[in-house]
């Protein structure tokens, strides 16, 4: 089943008198439950594509159909609501709210959903347990290591049970052992929860955890590699 379908997807930014085309007529199809890595040099359009799929930016032209809905036609207001239901976002620099504990950071997206405090507690506890950081639930981000912060960010991304998780260089700021642990965790989530996963990375080692790697250059698809992910 197709989860993401891009047709002739184009994004143009104007800068002064000129224009920049980070995405230029991209066609792409991602199936439900697939783990896709996006690679390419800086300025190739990886993060732009990720942001369009995550609904935090809108294409200039072309269509972007996610789970049967053309998100390019949604208003800012509708996009925010759509994001809260469909998307979990993992940032390179974790982007946790510094004055909130790990528990409170993970609870943040749930505040948008109609559920009781008890239901929220159960969901947060389950997410922290899944990422293996339940014992640090009352720690503030400054009291956690980079790997632990990223685990909290992953718990925040999965707590609403989104259909798609987008990750922008999730291991870019981590040492090798931590990066390995985080990638194993993302792979586990992809396999156990069946969540579609789109990840931007510069590291070929990291991209091997994905089922497919998409190479972009100058806003266009260069190659699409199928691979067997490490066990």
């Amino acid at each position, binding site marked *: 089943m197709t989860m993401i379908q891009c047709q002739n997807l184009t994004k143009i930014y104007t800068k002064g008198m000129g224009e920049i085309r980070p995405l230029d007529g991209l066609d792409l199809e991602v199936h439900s439950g697939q783990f896709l890595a996006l690679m390419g040099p800086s300025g190739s359009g990886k993060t732009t594509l990720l*942001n369009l799929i*995550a609904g*935090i*930016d809108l294409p200039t032209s072309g269509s972007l159909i996610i789970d049967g809905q053309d998100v390019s036609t949604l208003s*800012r*207001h509708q996009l*925010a*609501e*759509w*994001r*809260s*239901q469909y*998307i979990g*976002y993992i*940032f390179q620099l974790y*982007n946790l*709210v510094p*004055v*909130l504990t790990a528990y*409170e950071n993970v609870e*943040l*997206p749930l*505040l*948008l959903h109609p559920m009781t*405090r008890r239901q929220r507690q159960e969901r947060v506890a389950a997410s922290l347990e899944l990422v293996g950081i339940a014992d640090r639930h009352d720690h503030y981000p400054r009291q956690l290591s980079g790997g632990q912060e990223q685990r909290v960010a992953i718990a*925040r991304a999965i707590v609403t049970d989104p259909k798609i998780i987008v990750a922008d260089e999730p291991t870019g700021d981590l040492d090798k052992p931590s990066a390995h642990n985080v990638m194993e965790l993302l792979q586990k989530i992809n396999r156990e929860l069946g969540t579609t996963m789109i990840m931007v990375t510069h590291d070929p080692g990291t991209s091997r955890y994905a089922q497919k790697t998409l190479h972009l250059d100058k806003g266009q698809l260069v190659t699409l590699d199928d691979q067997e992910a490490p066990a």
Partner: protein
Amino acid sequence: MIAPRFVPFVLKQVIRHPLRTILTVGGVATAMFLFVAVQAMQRGVHAATVEEAEDTTLVVYREDRFCPFTSRLPQYYMDQIERIDGVRTVTPMKVVVNNCRTSLDVVTFRGVHVASFIEQHASQLRVIDGSTAQWEHRSDAALLGETLARRRGLNVGDRFDAAGVTSYVAGIVQSTEPQVENAAYVHLDFLQQATDRTLGIVTQFNVKVNEPSQLDAVAAAIDDLFHTAEAPTTTRSEKAFVSHVATDMIELIESTRWLGYGCLAAVLALVGNAIVLSAQDRIKEHAILQTLGYKGGLIGRLIISEAIVVTLMGGTVGSTVAMTIIHWTRLSMSADGLSIPIEANPFLFLVGLLIAAALGIVAGLVPAWQAMRRPIAHCFRAL
């Protein structure tokens, strides 16, 4: 404004930025303290000078005189005033003050006929200590308004000396009338002998009329009666008399309203600045919230809520301190024997909080609007 489940998030933002919060709350508290103090003075002027529909008291004073030492009226006027149509009672009063200048601690002696004073004011007075019987039976006894007694630390049984008059505290009373609350009532003849040793001369007559609608007619009749007498009179309603005699002091107090408005402007600027800086510091945080699905409107409301919490905290601290000081010091501004109380009541406290909350909303509007309008992608690119 925001759903209850977001309230803890707002409170955490306030509490977990302690330095920023303490400094902002401190500034707001200081400004709101001044605002409430100024409003308390304004309310005192209002209470002492604004006439109400049920007012029935006139004050007869010596024409063209404004000071109790120069207003000298023959006591025998009383009989003639009593015969005027519409007059219910007449109270001759000798007024002696320990300080003719405007001051925060003036002792005003009011010499009255004790029996008729009790009869006329029984319904407006509440004896909280001592008794009127003791006041009636002892010639040097004084009945003190509660405000004066508290300010001077006087209790029943004490002797106190002011303006060359030594009297014995026989009772302490509460009254809704500011002039009663700030005076020491003594026997008329005692005060006459204790001061100028002249019987038969009073400072003023307090005249009660039967109906409020008769005030103007009775006042005109009294002044007509003594127009050609040895001591012509000017008669006004009690509130008009206060506002006329204490004009200079009232003008000064009323001019302090600009100080109050200045305090509000200071709160607005202070909180506005704090929230703008806070919102700018947290562009990334707002972008994260938007990425999680928070709508721009909700983020704007969260920012405004934070501003309201900060101003309410400052408003509560400032107003509470001001109310406490005003309540315990019981200060009143006096001139020429008339008192303008500095009044603070729960309504003023509530007004202080409402204004603080309103300022929070106004101060948060611009940063909230900016945060609402900022596209997520721009926020991340800006970092």
